[in-house]
C-alpha cells in the first residue's frame, strides 16, 4: 500500500459534561488509502460518529478536548486553525450525514446550496457554479436535473435528498469522503441505489471513503476494510474477509451472531450479547467489553493492545487477550456466530 491518504494517530476526544468527563474516543488509530472504503462499525454511542466529526474538526468546543493527530497528506488537522479547516472541509474532506431530512437548508433551493459550496472553495462565476450543480445532480441520478436544480429540499423524497447531499459532497472532488450512516434513514430499495452510487464514485474519483454504519449487511456489501468500535476504542480491524470469516474479538462474534439473516431459516433463539454498552463517563477498567464478555478473565482488567495475532494475517488486529487457538475454538459456530465455521476460516 502506498502512503496513506489519511492517517489518524492515537485520537482522543473527550467532552466535559455535568456528570463528568466523557471519553468518547479513546486512542484511535487508523489509515485510509485512496480508492478504499473503510467501514467503521459499532452500536450507538460507541464513538463512531464523534470520530468522523472530529476528523473534520466539527466537535471543537469549549468543553471538548481533542488529542492525537489526524494527518491528511502532510497536514495535521487536529492542530489546524479554524480558517485552515474551512479550506479543507468540503474541498478535501467531505461528509454525508445520516439524516437527509435535516441536513439540507429548507429555505434555499438545492442548486443554490451546492453552488454556495463550490463558490466557497473556487473562484468561479455564479453561472459556472450553477452549471456544475446541474451536472452533479445528473451524475448522482436525479432526473431532469436542469429543472430540479431550482427545487427546494421539501420537494424531494428522502432518497433524492440524500443524492443531493452526495452531489454536494462531491462538488469539489474531495479526496476523502466521510459517510455517516448514509442509508440508515432510507428504505432498502433506495439504500441499494445510494450504495451503488457511492461505489461508482469511489471508482471514478479514486477517493478514500470512510463509511460509518451499524448495518453489517451494508458493510459486507461495500467495504474493503472494517474497523469494529466498542465504547470509544477500536476492538478489531482487518479486511472484510478477515472480520467476517476469522473474527478475533468476542464483541465482533456477538455482533455477527446477532444479525438476523434473510437467507437463513429461523434457527431457534438468536444469539445475543447480554447486557448493554457501558457508560463512557465511567467505563469499566481494562477491556471495555469485559462485563459483557463470556470469556473474560483476570487479565482483562488490563487494556489489551490492538495487535496482530495471526502472523499470516497482515493488517488483522484485535484487542483481546485470548490467544489465537483459544479464539478459534471458543468462537461458537453452531447457533453462535454461524457465519464463520472455524475450518473454513483457516482454509
Amino acid at each position, binding site marked *: 500500500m502506498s502512503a496513506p491518504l489519511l492517517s489518524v494517530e492515537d485520537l482522543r476526544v473527550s467532552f466535559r459534561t455535568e456528570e463528568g468527563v466523557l471519553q468518547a474516543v479513546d486512542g484511535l488509530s487508523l489509515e485510509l488509502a485512496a480508492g478504499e472504503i473503510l467501514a467503521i462499525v459499532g452500536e450507538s454511542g460507541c464513538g463512531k460518529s464523534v470520530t468522523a466529526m472530529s476528523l473534520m474538526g466539527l466537535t471543537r468546543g469549549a468543553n471538548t478536548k481533542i488529542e492525537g493527530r489526524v494527518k491528511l497528506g502532510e497536514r495535521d488537522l487536529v492542530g489546524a486553525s479554524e480558517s485552515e479547516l474551512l479550506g479543507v472541509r468540503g474541498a478535501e474532506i467531505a461528509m454525508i450525514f445520516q439524516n437527509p431530512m435535516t441536513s439540507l437548508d429548507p429555505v434555499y433551493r438545492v442548486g443554490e446550496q451546492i453552488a454556495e459550496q463550490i463558490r466557497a472553495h473556487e473562484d468561479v462565476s455564479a453561472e459556472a457554479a450553477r452549471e456544475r450543480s446541474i451536472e452533479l445532480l445528473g451524475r448522482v441520478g436525479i432526473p431532469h436535473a436542469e429543472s430540479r436544480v431550482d427545487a427546494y429540499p421539501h420537494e424531494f423524497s428522502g432518497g433524492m435528498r440524500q443524492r443531493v447531499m452526495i452531489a454536494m459532497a462531491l462538488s469539489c472532488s474531495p479526496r476523502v469522503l466521510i459517510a455517516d450512516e448514509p442509508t440508515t434513514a432510507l428504505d432498502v430499495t433506495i439504500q441499494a441505489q445510494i450504495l451503488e452510487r457511492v461505489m461508482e464514485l469511489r471508482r471514478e474519483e479514486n477517493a478514500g471513503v470512510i463509511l460509518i454504519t451499524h448495518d453489517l449487511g451494508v458493510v459486507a456489501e461495500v467495504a474493503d476494510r472494517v474497523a469494529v468500535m466498542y465504547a470509544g476504542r477500536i476492538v478489531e480491524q482487518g479486511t472484510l474477509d478477515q472480520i467476517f470469516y476469522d473474527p478475533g474479538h468476542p464483541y465482533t462474534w456477538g455482533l455477527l*451472531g446477532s444479525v438476523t439473516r434473510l437467507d437463513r431459516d429461523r434457527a431457534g433463539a438468536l444469539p445475543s450479547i447480554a447486557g448493554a454498552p457501558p457508560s463512557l463517563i465511567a467505563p469499566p477498567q481494562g477491556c471495555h467489553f469485559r462485563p459483557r464478555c463470556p470469556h473474560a478473565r483476570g487479565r482483562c482488567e488490563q487494556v489489551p493492545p490492538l495487535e496482530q495475532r495471526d502472523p499470516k494475517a497482515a493488517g488483522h488486529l484485535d484487542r483481546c487477550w485470548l490467544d489465537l487457538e483459544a479464539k478459534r475454538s471458543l468462537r461458537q459456530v453452531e447457533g453462535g456466530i454461524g457465519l464463520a465455521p472455524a475450518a473454513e476460516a483457516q482454509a
Partner: protein
Amino acid sequence: MSSEPGPLLQVEHLKTYFPIKSGVLIDREVGRVHAVDDVSFELGDGETLGLVGESGCGKTTLARTVTRLLQPSGGSVRFQGQDITELSQRKLRPVRREMQMVFQDPFSSLNPRRRVREIIGGPLRLHGASSSKADERSREILELVGLSGDHMDRYPHEFSGGMRQRIGIARALALSPKLVVLDEPVSALDVSIQAQIINLLDSIQDELGLSYLFVAHDLSVVRHVSDRIAVMYLGKIVELAAASELFEGPIHPYTLSLYSAVPVPDPKEGRARERIVLKGDVPNPSDPPAGCRFHTRCPVATEICSQEEPPLADYGGGHLAACHHPQSIGAARIKRASRSPASPESSARRLPAAGGAR
C-alpha cells in the same frame, strides 16, 4: 404453529383513506390518500404474521386500523368472530383487553412523567384491578420481560432503549391479550439489543400462546420471527405466503427486488449474488398509478400492467400473489391457480396466463 378452526383475526377488504383538505374558510376535500386500499388477511391462534413494505406503503396504517386506533373507510375487521369495525369506543373496551400494541419508538411511546408502576399498571387499573392487584401483576410481567420488581419506581429516562422497549412490551402484556400488534418493535434498537428483544418476543409467544401481527420494514427481522408474511406496496398486499416459501420462491417482482436489495451480512455470498436495483421512488399514494401499482418501477412490466389491476391469485398452499407476470414458478402451477377471495374488489377477473411467466 397455526391452528385451523376459526381465525383469531379476520380482515376483509379493509380500506383506510385519509382526506386531503384544502381551502381557507371551507375545507374542501380535494383528494384522498389511499393508505390501505382493500386488504384482506387472516391471523390464526399462536401465529405470527409479518407485514413488510417500504415507508409509506400503509403497513402502520393497517396495523392501527386493525386495532381500531384509526377508523376504517370500508371493509371489516373480525376479532374472535366478532365484527369490531363499527363498535363504539365503549364497546371496544373489552376487545382492547385482548388486543394490544407495541410501538416503534421506545423513547416517545412511554410517558416520561410516569413511573414504570403507573405505565404498566395503568391499563390494569383501567380495566378494574385494585392498586395492589395491579402492582402484583406488574411485578410478574416485569420479570417475564427480563426486568425486575426493583424497576417499578423508576422513570423511563432511567432505562436504555432496549429496556424501555421491554417496558413497552410489558405494558402490552399486562392485560393478557390474545393478539399483540407490534409496529416496528426493534427498528430503533441496536443489533445486539434487537436480538435480545426478538428472543424475548419469541419466548413470550411460546409461553403465553400469543398471536403477533409484526409490522417491520426489515425483511431479515420479519423472516426470523414470522410464520407467514404479507408484502405491501402502496396500500395493497402484493404477495402473501408462508415465510420460507416467500423467500424460496417469491412470485411478485416487487418481493424479488425487495429481497435482492437487502444486503447479506456475508461478503462471499454477497459477491455471488445478482442484484436487482429498482429505479425511482414509491409513487405518491394520493395519486397511485392505474392498473398494477408497481408497474412504474417493475422490471418485467408490460402493457397490461398499466391497464388492469391484477387479482391476488392463489398458487396453492396459501401462497397468494397479485401479478400479471408471476416469477419463480412453472407454467403448471400458474395454470392451476385460482382467484383468491382476498383479491381487491377493483381487480381484474382474469388470472395470469401461463405464457406470461419467464
